[in-house]
């Protein structure tokens, strides 16, 4: 049943693509051309609205950066208590180890810095 449904969807997609593609093509010579991925010689690019493209690229990246920043700020404000607890936990983990080795020579702390993770 699931396979049948998937087959129907695939064939519908194939038919739609075929209809879209095999329709009459307009001889638009100055039309802006899309990207090609075959790495061959460059295709005619045509006249694209370059200002729009540049602005849109910048806008998309600005939106992405802004959204990431906002999400982080929201997450920080919402789970401040949890982060405080986590911070205390991590501090406890490290200080436990420090107090454990406090009995050993102090020099061990400095020596340990040299055993960096490869």
């Amino acid at each position, binding site marked *: 049943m699931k396979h049948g449904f998937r087959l129907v969807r*695939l064939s519908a997609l*194939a038919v739609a*693509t*075929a209809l879209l*593609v*095999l329709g009459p*093509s307009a*001889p*638009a*010579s*100055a*039309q802006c*051309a899309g990207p090609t991925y075959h790495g*061959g*010689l*460059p*295709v*005619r*690019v045509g006249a694209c609205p370059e200002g729009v493209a540049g602005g849109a690229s910048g806008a998309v990246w600005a939106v992405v950066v802004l959204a990431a920043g906002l999400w982080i700020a929201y997450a920080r404000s919402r789970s401040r208590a949890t982060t405080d607890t986590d911070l205390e936990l991590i501090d406890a983990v490290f200080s436990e180890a420090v107090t454990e080795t406090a009995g050993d020579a102090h020099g061990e702390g400095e020596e340990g810095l040299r055993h960096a993770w490869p």
Partner: protein
Amino acid sequence: MTHEQEQEQDRDRDRLADEPERGPRPYVRLMAAIGAGGLVAATVAVVVSVSTDPVMQLPESVPTLPSDFSTGDLPTSLPSMPELPSDLPTDYTTNLPTAIPTEDLPTALPSDLLPSFPTDFPSLPSLPEMPSLPQAGGAS
């Protein structure tokens, strides 16, 4: 529900969640299905590509051909061309453009052009070796 029972439930849920990777042959069927999808995509591409004309592929900026490669310089042993059909542009094979225009080239082969191509067109002798041009847009 006691704490231990909750933990047991969590562990059961975890066990079910990584079920796809716990089996003896994880992901084999999935990758086979994905490969089949790729095959379908390739078939679609072949069908589409063989049944429609390609988009005109010409470099955006081509250096002008050297001036000594003009129409008059074809080798003298070139046999005379048969009468070309009237709807072919007259400079189709003899006048190579000096600079490929970027704007007014057809993007598709005109459908009525090539079928009327004469079938007994004599084979041209090989072109004289073009002197090395700076590569179209390529880095050198």
